[in-house]
């Protein structure tokens, strides 16, 4: 651009920069920001209660589980099933409490029966070790962050717990629930599914016949469910068909997307907070109807 252009743009810029927000308007803006913070905080409180309820439910599940397992084992008689091979125990790991900081970390650990040896149980043991290590790694990270925040001035509360979704004869899923509340709430779930017939850890791709575009088929169904839910309830919001922020929109699940198999044998896709919806929606799940994937399931 020529010097004259520069000069003219400079004049325009001076004109453009003239407006300044009044003190009153700035004060009102700060109030509005406090209001935003307050609303965020109350949302996270709601989530804290939800988190505690889940934690309570998890404790119940674990107390009842041994009885169920033995009943199942008895019913099965002498048929060798891996279902009786895995057992989940919970360990009170890291506990801390002062005026501003509370940590309640109870970790699940998958145990395998000793003494039996064949390739399937060996695989099972390896899978269990692998999952236990992953859970330990996640918990360590959370506890480290919690400890490093102890010096700060804010309030914080972390809860780590688990739930066994002991759903079908073929699959076994362990859900690790990590919950944090402070200035805002944050929940993160991890799912681990084991194939009880092989002892192997199951990935989403393992469920489907090869050469099928299961990601697209499932994603399309999730989008359909999102649209239906949003149409039915104004309070529900997913990032889909959002024109203001198109790059936030849910496009497709990935190989790492969490899932489990429910008691009807249906695949349930799980998203963490903020993945496919505003964080205020929390973690969300979509049950994929059998008829959608019936043709491509193994």
């Amino acid at each position, binding site marked *: 651009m020529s010097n004259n252009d520069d000069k003219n743009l400079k004049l325009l810029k001076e004109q453009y920069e003239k*407006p300044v927000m009044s003190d009153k308007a700035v004060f009102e803006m700060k109030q509005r920001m406090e209001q935003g913070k307050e609303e965020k905080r109350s949302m996270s409180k709601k989530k804290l209660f939800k988190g505690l309820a889940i934690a309570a439910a998890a404790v119940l599940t674990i107390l009842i589980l041994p009885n169920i397992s033995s009943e199942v084992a008895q019913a099965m008689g002498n048929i060798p099933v891996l279902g009786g091979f895995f057992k989940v125990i919970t360990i009170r790991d890291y506990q801390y409490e002062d005026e501003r900081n509370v940590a309640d970390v109870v970790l699940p650990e998958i145990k395998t029966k000793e003494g039996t040896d064949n390739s399937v149980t060996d695989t099972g043991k390896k899978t269990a070790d692998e999952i236990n290590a992953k859970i330990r790694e996640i918990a360590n990270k959370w506890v480290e962050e919690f400890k490093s925040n102890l010096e700060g001035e804010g309030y914080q509360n972390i809860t780590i717990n688990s739930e066994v979704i002991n759903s079908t004869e073929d699959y076994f899923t362990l859900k690790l629930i990590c919950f944090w509340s402070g200035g805002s709430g944050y929940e993160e779930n991890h799912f681990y599914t084991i194939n009880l017939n092989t002892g192997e850890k199951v990935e989403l791709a393992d469920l489907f016949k090869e050469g099928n575009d299961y990601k697209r088929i499932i994603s399309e169904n999730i989008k359909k469910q999102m649209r239906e839910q949003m149409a039915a309830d104004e309070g529900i919001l997913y990032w889909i068909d959002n024109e203001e922020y198109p790059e936030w929109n849910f496009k497709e699940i990935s190989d790492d997307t969490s899932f489990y198999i429910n008691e009807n044998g249906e695949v349930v896709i799980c998203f963490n907070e903020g993945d496919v919806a505003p964080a205020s929606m929390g973690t969300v799940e979509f049950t994929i109807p059998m008829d959608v994937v019936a043709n491509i399931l193994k």
Partner: protein
Amino acid sequence: MFRRKKKQDEIIEQIILKKYNSYYRMAMSFVHNEADAADIVQEGAYNAIKNSDSLKHIEFAETWVYRIMMNEIYKRLNTKKVKSIDDGDFIDLQVEDKYENIDLMIALDSMPDNDKAVIQLKYFEDLKLDEIAYILGENLSTVKSRLYRGLKKLRCKMDDLNMKGGERHVK
């Protein structure tokens, strides 16, 4: 992780407190009304704080807040446009002293909203083109063509001005 989230909240708050006049100027250039512009910035600040968890990459925080402000401006323009047909509300360009610039200001103001925003973000707020693309939710090539089109329009006016200036000198 949660410490990142907490830090993120603070970063967004600091950005707003540092840049509110910049958002305000942008809002003023579109709505030409102090009360509306203040309202836009206040709503934008509220939305940014409340939804700060939605920001996925903290390094985009500044442009992310800008983008929320820009959306507030466009939201307001859409309701205003419908209204102004009824009450015959004319835009009042508050130009006091720089009389020679009024043609340029009108030229800038009469551009399509996004062309105007690109020029202002680039030359008055010194943002990079890829940042502008993110703020406006458009791809880079669209932003580039808006920039060239806008500059061309301004340059025509500038040439006029420069010529007039030259004539005056001759006289």
